[in-house]
């Protein structure tokens, strides 16, 4: 009795393309991995260093694998900036919540907001380099999205400053627009220092130094300003 033929089952056609993957990652994981490589390349050498080829090589896969995830360089960069922008926004939200959760003292000092933000910068330096270190060859569309992320910080600071001003009985006509622009510059300076020299300027030092400075000042008057 002839043995039934037990020829090896043919590989499904899709398996052929799957074989290109160095390790068999689902496409979502592969996409993230490629974006991580692209972010590293941008942080190291600017947007000009990002090509499908460079990103594939950095990830250790062949170019067709990269093209399975992205239509091309423009598509990849758009995905990258959109992912990083979302991460930045999430940090701003966390930072705002840090103080609302009761950590802020009654004078509205933004100690925890600042600490949360600067710690996030230290932990994800490549992400924040996009905002705080001048980069070469930023595509116009990416530049616009990053500018929008910077503006987000401005509105966070507006909320914080308004609370600080109320807690310290500032005159109602104090120029909030000027205040938030100057504050943003200080916060961005702190972020850039943490990025570029975290040993000398750790998040704790920056947050402590700036809030201790604010804390040395008291309201000149102790009653709320006339609301009229």
């Amino acid at each position, binding site marked *: 009795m002839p043995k039934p033929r037990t020829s090896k089952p043919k590989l499904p056609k899709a398996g052929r393309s799957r074989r290109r993957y160095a390790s068999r990652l689902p496409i979502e994981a592969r996409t993230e991995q490629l974006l991580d490589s692209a972010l590293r390349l941008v942080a190291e050498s600017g947007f000009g260093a990002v090509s499908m080829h460079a990103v594939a090589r950095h990830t250790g896969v062949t170019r067709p694998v990269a093209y399975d995830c992205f239509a091309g360089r423009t598509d990849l960069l758009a995905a990258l900036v959109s992912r990083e922008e979302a991460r930045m926004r999430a940090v701003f939200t966390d930072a705002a919540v840090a103080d609302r959760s009761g950590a802020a003292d009654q004078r509205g000092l933004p100690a925890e907001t600042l600490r949360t933000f600067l710690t996030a910068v230290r932990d994800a330096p490549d992400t924040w380099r996009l905002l705080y270190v001048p980069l070469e060859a930023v595509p116009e569309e990416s530049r616009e999205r990053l500018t929008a992320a910077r503006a987000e910080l401005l509105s966070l600071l507006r909320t914080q400053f308004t609370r600080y001003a109320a807690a310290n009985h*500032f005159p109602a*006509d104090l120029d909030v627009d000027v205040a938030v622009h100057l504050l943003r510059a200080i916060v*961005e300076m702190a972020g850039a220092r943490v990025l570029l020299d975290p040993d000398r300027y750790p998040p704790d030092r920056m947050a402590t130094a700036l809030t201790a*400075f604010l804390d*040395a000042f008291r*309201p000149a008057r102790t009653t709320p300003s006339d609301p009229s």
Partner: protein
Amino acid sequence: MSDPSAGSPPRRRLAPADRRDELLDRALDLVAEHGAASVTMQAVARAAGVARPLVYDFFADRAALLDALLVREESRALSDVMTVAPRVLAGTDLGDSVTTALEAFLRLVLDRPTTWRMLLSPTEGLPAEVGIRIERGREKIAGVVEASIRAVLGTRIAGLDTEVVALAVIAAGEAAARLVLSAPSEFPPARLTGFTRALFSALTLEPVPNGRH
């Protein structure tokens, strides 16, 4: 012998140092009018009314010319700041001191708008080393600002991290300068000095208890 008064108006024969300065002045004009990218050897020669080889006598190429321009403008800006910085020590009222210093600083920024724009918002038209040079200049200013802060506040705020506070003061000053440079009608200098005056009159320094340092 040819008559120097004949034909086109004679170019003054300048001493080399003066000629070099004049070429840099024209380059600065170009930056002001059309941005750093417009500065080429040809454009500078044309603006100065000289032949291109003369520009090459002073600068090896465009990058060298731009670098020389930055060196000169940065040293001018620094010496401007150095004349203003000590004045913050003069006042006894903190709000007055800060406001006076800011007023003086913004005035000197507006006296050299192109210079400060180059230093505060370096664009892609400038060579990459610019950032490093600017950072070094900032460090020099930081030293002076820190000394002022220590002198004015060191005894009044215990455990003050003067280095970080100096960096914050400089960051705020630079932001103020960028505002008056980029949106002069929305942010005239008086709006910024009005802000610091109002802010400091709403705040007072906590008295330091005796012996606390």
